[in-house]
């Protein structure tokens, strides 16, 4: 009962902040709503007894990545010159296509998990037994080793790319 109340309150907040992120005019305010959104998501994780995920969510997204967003938003002058007006109708069309794709993806996942409910059930007992930090660590270095390493390679490539782009002609 209590959990349900907390969950629905958080869910409302998350949706509300999400809407604010896309509707607010001021980019800095957008970023702030995004942070609030992330914090609420982290609380949902806590509700699911996934403290590790919650803490990492705050540390990586709210504390790391969004700080850099804020950096960029503050540094780059976002008041565009009037001639660079972007076609809002085209933007809207692209947005609808993307939203439709996302909806399709989520429905596909939901349907898949409805057909194969076992994948969630197998992990749950492990979470209950030990701390979930260890569980995540074990899973990352055994079952998901290849995706993990691929992701780290991807990050490395992105980092090198960023440095190459940012480097001025010396």
């Amino acid at each position, binding site marked *: 009962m209590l959990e349900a109340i907390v969950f629905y309150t958080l869910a409302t907040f998350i949706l509300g902040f999400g809407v604010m992120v896309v509707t607010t005019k001021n980019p800095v305010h957008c970023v702030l709503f995004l942070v609030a959104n992330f914090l609420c998501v982290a609380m949902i994780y806590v509700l699911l007894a996934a403290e590790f995920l919650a803490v990492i969510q705050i540390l990586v997204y709210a504390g790391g990545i969004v700080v850099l967003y804020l950096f960029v938003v503050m*540094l*780059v*002058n976002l008041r565009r010159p009037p001639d660079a007006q972007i076609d809002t109708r085209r933007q809207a069309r692209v947005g609808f296509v993307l939203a439709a794709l996302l909806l399709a993806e989520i429905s596909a996942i939901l349907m898949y998990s409805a057909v194969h409910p076992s994948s969630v059930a197998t992990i749950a007992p492990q979470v209950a037994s030990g701390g979930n930090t260890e569980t995540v660590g074990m899973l990352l270095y055994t079952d998901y080793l290849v995706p993990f390493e691929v992701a780290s390679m991807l990050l490395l490539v992105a980092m090198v790319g960023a440095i190459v*782009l940012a480097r001025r002609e010396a």
Partner: protein
Amino acid sequence: MFDTSELTLNLGPQHPSTHGVLRVVLRLDGERVVGCDIVIGYLHRGIEKLCEHRDWAQIVLITDRMDYVAAASNNLGYVETVEKLMSLEVPRRARYIRTILAELQRIASHCLWLGTHAMDLGAMTVFLYAFRERELVLDLFEEYCGARLTYNSMRIGGLPLDIPPGWDKKVRTFCDILETKVAEYEELLTHNRIWRDRTTGIGVIDGDEAVAIGLSGPALRGSGVPRDVRKDEPYAAYAEVDFCVPIGTAGDTYDRYLVRIEEFHQSIRIIRQALDGLPEGPILGKVPRLLRPPAGETYHAIESPKGEIGFFIVSDGRSNTPYRFRVRPPSFCNLQALPRLVTGHLVSDVVALIGSIDIVLGEVDR
């Protein structure tokens, strides 16, 4: 890729590190300074014009208000210029006491410089330590002439007062104290890694360029030019005492710091010799009751703590006031080097460099 226009940053005139009411308009690329304009005049009181409307003797008091942290040096520069104009003979005892006062003043001024310079770079304790010793000098001045900041401590042709009894002993004690305290400052700064990182290689200027810009005093000697008016054109009793002129090699902020620190030691040395050789005799020479220098013009410079302070005075030989009065203030001339020094450095270095050239706005603006 991004819009990288310059950022204009207005440093001062109410900024804690501009040592008064200096205004520096910086043009920044990120935190790097690409250009700098200096705006002065917030403390302009028209001292030079004022002096043209004052009696010759009254002007001493106005010179106090120029470099108000080194009033005795200003007094000395002015009275010696008038003495030169009138070809007055100053008694030997007066010249010795003037030397002692000027060197005490140098110590006080350098204490103030050291404190504020260190404070600008974040070493706040040095500030209070240096002011503690400056206080001792002020006490000595207070005992001598009753004032602590604007001394009015010289007269044309000599001195207004002889030293009070026992004063020379106190000066000696002060010299002993200061020696240990300077070692203390050095312990906190000279070999401090952060201090060295903050000051070495900052605002490097070589000797030729320093001369071309018109730097003088410790700022010039830091660049390795051994120019010191006390040595080159001795005045007061400097010809009769033995001292060295410390010079730097690299011409950066650290060298200018080292030069001033060494000047503490040299000043102590001069004071001790002057006290040892202090002759007996009158303190005021033969001065006509009505001061009216013969028509003519003269320029005379002395070594103030901040550099060469020169007075150019024209007398028409008829009136009781100078016909033309002009000061060559070391702070003003040294300040000219600031744009050259800060370009290419970071914002944090700007405050280090303002401190490094040691300016007093009362003297820059006059």
